[in-house]
């Protein structure tokens, strides 16, 4: 009950007009940041951090976390409209969101994405409010072996479910792993595969690859197909929001499942990206119209968006209670906390009640404000698709180039993006799936690091991945996901032979 009283006190703090104004500003900035591929939430928050030093800490964190929510919302927009994921966790949203937009349903896709984001975030905030101390303790049980198991599960739940032959999926994933290996090997401290080229010291950034593979690749494909942009007949009308809302409750099961996956991934902290991929994969497996995923199924938008937002929100919990950021943006916010003289960690909830509960209350309000802001803009976003391709394509190209440049302020990255664009075009022509490649670039080095840390700790014994109940369960789940189709086939054969 004390928590509830604290929360209401927090609402009182967050509802001050000054703070509400900061919320609206933060959300709007965040959406803009999310829309620009490359300028991710982490960069946006880092750039704006110094501006907040003159504010009281509670107001400052409210504004910054609203930028964070805004970026989470905004990432979905370009994914759905142009097949360009602005953030790593929006990649899975493109799989069904973009086909929907092409079928003239961008409004539905955007509404579904925004609403599910809101649902996911709300679920996570409620969890933070009610069980924060409990969940924070759970995160402590995640050592390197447990983390690797989670990544393993993310990869496995992806391999079996591709429509393409599994070997094409694995081939694409391996290219991703190879690209992820470039740069500094964080375990030995040695440079790998850089061939003395300074620009490669940093490895291949996920964002550059994605902007090229998806954005540029898509433009090349559209050019080949006769310069037609297929979203032209999009209805631009606020009624689409209400129509979609009527449809959504039917997918409550997917939502709930995605919320749980998201919270788990956010707290552990593996982050929003594996959450969105895993949730998409599992939804595809379990949904009634799962076979239709990838062709513009609204459930395929709901699943990743819900999970990503739930994870993004839940990621703030380990940051506040343990001082471990669950996402790059959370890492920057963490830096902010320290600068404002707040020490994240177990004592924060005890000593800085007003700050913590003000922040939690602002999560409720910030997401609500965010939802209203982005939903009212749905018709405007959808209308973008009516602009002729001849005008919009150069704009997208410029946007992509700016995005790629702003990741590291380097023109080399812009070249790299173009190269990735051509590769993306070729891979699509040969029917290689791009998603596993992207997944491997994002999670490859993290998985490798966790794997090698575990083995260092266990003196090289693989038994560490089955050394306790938690890690064994996750690994077993991963193996089941990997061989699911084989298991299914075996089971049905067994049944027919029995009959």
């Amino acid at each position: 009950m004390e928590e509830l009283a604290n929360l209401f006190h927090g609402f009182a703090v967050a509802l001050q007009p000054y703070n509400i104004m900061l919320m609206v500003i933060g959300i709007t900035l965040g959406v803009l940041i999310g829309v620009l591929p490359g300028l991710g939430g982490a960069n946006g928050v880092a750039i704006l951090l110094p501006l907040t030093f003159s504010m009281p800490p509670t107001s400052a964190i409210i504004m910054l976390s609203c930028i964070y929510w805004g970026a989470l919302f905004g990432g979905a927009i370009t994914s759905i409209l142009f097949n360009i994921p602005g953030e790593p966790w929006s990649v899975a949203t493109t799989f069904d969101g973009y086909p929907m937009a092409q079928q003239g349903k961008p409004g539905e896709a955007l509404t579904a994405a925004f609403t599910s984001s809101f649902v996911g975030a709300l679920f996570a905030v409620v969890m933070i409010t009610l069980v924060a101390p409990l969940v924070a303790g759970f995160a402590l049980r995640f050592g390197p072996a447990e983390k690797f198991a989670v990544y393993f599960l993310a990869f496995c739940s992806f391999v079996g479910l591709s429509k393409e032959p599994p070997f094409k999926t694995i081939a694409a994933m391996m290219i991703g792993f190879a690209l992820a290996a470039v740069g500094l090997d964080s375990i030995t401290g040695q440079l790998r595969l850089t061939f003395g080229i300074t620009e490669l010291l940093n490895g291949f950034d996920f964002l550059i690859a994605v902007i090229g593979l998806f954005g540029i690749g898509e433009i090349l494909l559209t050019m080949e197909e006769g310069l037609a942009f297929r979203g032209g007949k999009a209805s631009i009308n606020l009624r689409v929001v209400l129509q979609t809302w009527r449809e959504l409750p039917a997918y409550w099961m997917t939502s709930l499942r995605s919320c749980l996956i998201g919270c788990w991934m956010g707290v552990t902290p593996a982050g929003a990206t594996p959450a969105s991929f895993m949730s998409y994969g599992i939804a595809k497996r379990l949904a009634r119209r799962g076979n239709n995923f990838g062709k513009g199924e609204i459930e395929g938008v709901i699943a990743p968006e819900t999970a990503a937002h739930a994870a993004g929100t839940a990621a703030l919990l380990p940051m506040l209670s343990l001082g471990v950021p669950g996402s790059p943006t959370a890492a920057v916010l963490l830096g902010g906390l320290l600068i404002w003289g707040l020490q994240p960690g177990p004592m924060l909830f005890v000593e800085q009640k007003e700050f913590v509960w003000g922040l939690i209350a602002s999560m409720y309000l910030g997401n609500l404000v965010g939802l209203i802001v982005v939903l009212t803009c749905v018709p405007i976003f959808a209308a973008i698709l009516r602009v002729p391709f001849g005008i919009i394509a150069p704009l997208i190209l410029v946007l992509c180039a700016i995005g790629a440049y702003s990741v590291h302020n380097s023109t080399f990255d812009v070249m790299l993006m173009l190269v990735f664009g051509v590769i993306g075009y070729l891979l699509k022509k040969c029917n290689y799936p791009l998603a596993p490649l992207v997944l491997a670039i994002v999670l490859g080095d993290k998985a490798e690091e966790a794997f090698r840390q575990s083995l260092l700790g266990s003196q090289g014994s693989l038994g560490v991945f089955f050394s306790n109940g938690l890690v064994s369960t996750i690994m077993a789940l991963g193996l089941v996901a990997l061989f699911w189709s084989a298991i299914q086939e075996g089971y049905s054969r067994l049944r027919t032979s029995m009959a």
Partner: protein
Amino acid sequence: MKPFVLNVALAAMVMSCASSTASRAAWEPVRPVEFIVPAGTGGGADQMARTIQGIVTKHNLMKQPLVVINKAGGAGGEGFLDVKTSANNPHKIIITLSNLFTTPLATGIPFNWKDLTPVAMLALDEFVLWVNAEKPYSSVKDYVEAAKKAPSGTFKMGGTGSKQEDQIITVGIEKAIDAKFTYIPYKGGGEVAVQLVGNHVDSTVNNPIEAVAQWRGGKLRPLCVFDAQPMAYDEPIADGKAWKDIPTCKSQGLAMEYLMLRGIFMSPKATKDQVEYYVELFKKVRATPEWQEFMKSGAFNTTFLTGADYAKWIEAEEKRHESLMKEAGFLASN
């Protein structure tokens, strides 16, 4: 009336002449200054750089904006090479950590601190030996005994990065007490502290700021500090103990000392005026209450050096890193 007006006009002319010669003599940035951080966002160097940026903005210490840019690739090599190739560009400064020495030695990238222009040492970061508070050892002696008793290689030390400061200290401890640890590298200091709280490693050498929250929460216990004298801060943190009450490792029979540079360099071929401008700027930053609060929260050693003293300190420290890393077998093979 007339002479008075004339006098005023004359005085104004003299004044304006004087001020214009003054501004001609002292250099000042004419466009935004890039503040390179050769490490990722959220880490110790990044926090310090962003604090400085905040202080400069809040107190209006510069006429041009100061822009923090992270160039973390190749253990910071990306950032160092960027500044190295910006000769004659006085609008670029870089904050360094120990990777100023360790990165070129371990990876063999073509860089040495002499490629840059030293500006000032802002502070030195301390290292403390931490263990989980549930563990029975409450002194360095108990810790050393436990480490020696454990079968070779099963005692786990967690740290930030590979072949960098944390691992150098670990090798130093191994030598000092004749035991073999397994060093497990993680990406960031906060993560290392939490791995210790979760008992996934047996000890760490976290900087004070990375582990203080867990100390206050009663999860971690500091055993000793790797400095020649105890830290200066006497405000109680946990259980009535202050940073000052942590003994030096040397006094506890663990002969290892290590401090990490938090210093500023600028691009090559900077003129004396340009260096002087930044030295004055950082003197002003150091005088602000925000900076002092920041120093206290991280229990920093506040030594401030510039000019020849600074260069001499770096040179000695470079030699020391070279020999430490050579002994540990961390030097790049080429």
